[in-house]
């Protein structure tokens, strides 16, 4: 069994969001970087659990990013995984990124490809579906449970107002969200071990980006909260009905 886990570097959830260069670039100065939480807590940890259940499993991590992504990859390797591949490119175009990952995946002949359900920076929810299409694989998005039963994937995915259980033969690509696994903290043995795990750097293939970012905007500042006295909560109902007109 070979699993490929796609990892992305994102600003910390509490990072201040600001832009530079006339609002065309994310202002990264002083920003703390983390592994995208969906990639880490759900995709990677579930892959590690599958390896714990079947130790012959191999886990490879892949990321598309510059050398500044390496601390994040080492952290991911400290949690688990056998080796990592960094595709040396920087892009915000989902198709470009997916094409690079698909190329690595093609060469590695993986049984499972895990992604997080989205990154918390560009919120594209696109990489898993695109990689699956480029490799002509089935794709299950927004999975909340993943099991292997006699070599077949049994996946529960979220649907509007409920859940659906799917059965799929491998190989398959899966986007993972809450429910798949629980967050883990790397231990000292993991951190030490991660230093000697292979981290391969490969150059990107030529792919044309389909989109480009023109600019960023910040949402207009809120006018400020209108406080209603706790002595007269009926006034809140009146305001919501007559002023905000929400019911």
């Amino acid at each position, binding site marked *: 069994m070979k699993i490929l886990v796609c990892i992305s570097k994102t600003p910390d959830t509490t990072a201040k969001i600001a*832009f530079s260069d006339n609002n065309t670039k994310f202002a990264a100065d002083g920003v703390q970087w983390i592994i995208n939480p969906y990639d880490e807590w759900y995709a990677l940890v579930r892959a590690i659990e599958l390896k714990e259940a079947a130790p012959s499993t191999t886990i490879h991590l892949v990321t598309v990013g510059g050398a500044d992504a390496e601390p994040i990859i080492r952290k991911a390797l400290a949690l688990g995984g056998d080796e990592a591949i960094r595709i040396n490119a920087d892009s915000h175009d989902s198709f470009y990124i997916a094409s690079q990952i698909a190329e690595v995946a093609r060469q590695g002949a993986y049984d499972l490809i895990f992604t997080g359900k989205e990154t918390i920076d560009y919120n594209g929810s696109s990489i898993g579906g695109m990689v699956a*299409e480029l490799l002509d694989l089935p794709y299950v*998005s927004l999975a909340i449970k993943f099991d292997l039963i006699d070599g077949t994937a049994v996946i529960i995915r979220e649907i509007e107002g409920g859940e659906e259980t799917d059965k799929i033969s491998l190989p398959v690509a899966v986007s993972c969200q809450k429910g798949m696994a629980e967050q883990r903290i790397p231990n000292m043995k993991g951190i030490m071990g991660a230093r000697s795990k292979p981290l391969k750097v490969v150059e990107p293939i030529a792919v044309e980006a389909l989109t480009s970012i023109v600019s*960023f905007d910040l949402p207009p500042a809120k006018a400020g*909260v*209108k406080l209603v006295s706790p002595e007269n909560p009926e006034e809140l109902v009146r305001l919501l009905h007559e002023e905000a007109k929400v019911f």
Partner: protein
Amino acid sequence: MSVLVFLDQSEGQIKKSSLEAASYGAKVAEQLGTTAEGIVLGNVTDDVAALGKYGLKKVHTLKNDTLDHLDAQVFTNVIADAVASSSATVVIFSNNFSGKAIAPRLSAKLKAGFVSGAVALPDTSNGFVVKKNVFSGKAFANISLNTAVKIISLNPNSYNITTIDAVAEVAALSTTVGAPKVIVTATNKIVGEVPLTEAEIVISGGRGLKGPENWGLVTDLAKLLGAATACSRPVADIGWRPHHEHVGQTGLAIAPNLYFAIGISGAIQHLAGVNRSKVIVVINKDPEAPFFKAADYGIVGDAFEVMPKIIEAVRKLKGA
């Protein structure tokens, strides 16, 4: 040239988020000087011709049992055929569960530029630029699509449904439907509740409610307003409420017209899931709760004293 809108159905009925996508698609078509068409897959009980009301000139249908369940690969191939046969240059999805599964695949298949989670009409004054949410609702990015075919998935509840007096022409697609690789063995839907992602009003509770036995304060108000119920992460983690109600960074992201938060402090991770709501109301006894900074209306007070009065006032207003 046309704009093609994928309309998602569940148990034969077209979803509200898809009607928003249809209205949006009709407006995009008007901007481009062309017409909007729809595509509806599977066995639909709704009157498809009536979708003309949302501005669709023509609706392509394909009644097929396989298409009652989502296999993103099968759907992508069928929609790709429809894109070709209707010479569509723009394809619109709702950024809902199905849209998230299909739209990126279609983008890769057609090498069509894709913006997921659009929140406004494209700016076609100079190229084709679409505004989308980024950084979990903390900012917007304006994305330029540089390809002949363009794909947009529209965030639910970011475009108002508009109607006209018209009927759509209905045409059956003659595409072959591939064998699905994803076999659905069970579906488990919560019946009788408003799905969170489709709800216009969401009433939500946090740890400030002290225990699941006090949730009547949330559900009573929700019932009166036809609202969905939600909760904060700690509440789902302790097991006071089911996990599918958890909104926030790691739970669902929602954008209702009204988000009414009771006893939730408003940590940044929670805000990431709700900050696209049009109006936010916060009831919290701690005046320092960070949620008040993101709120439009608020009461600094004890939910156990304030909420019964609010529920009573709404009951009177609704004449219930």
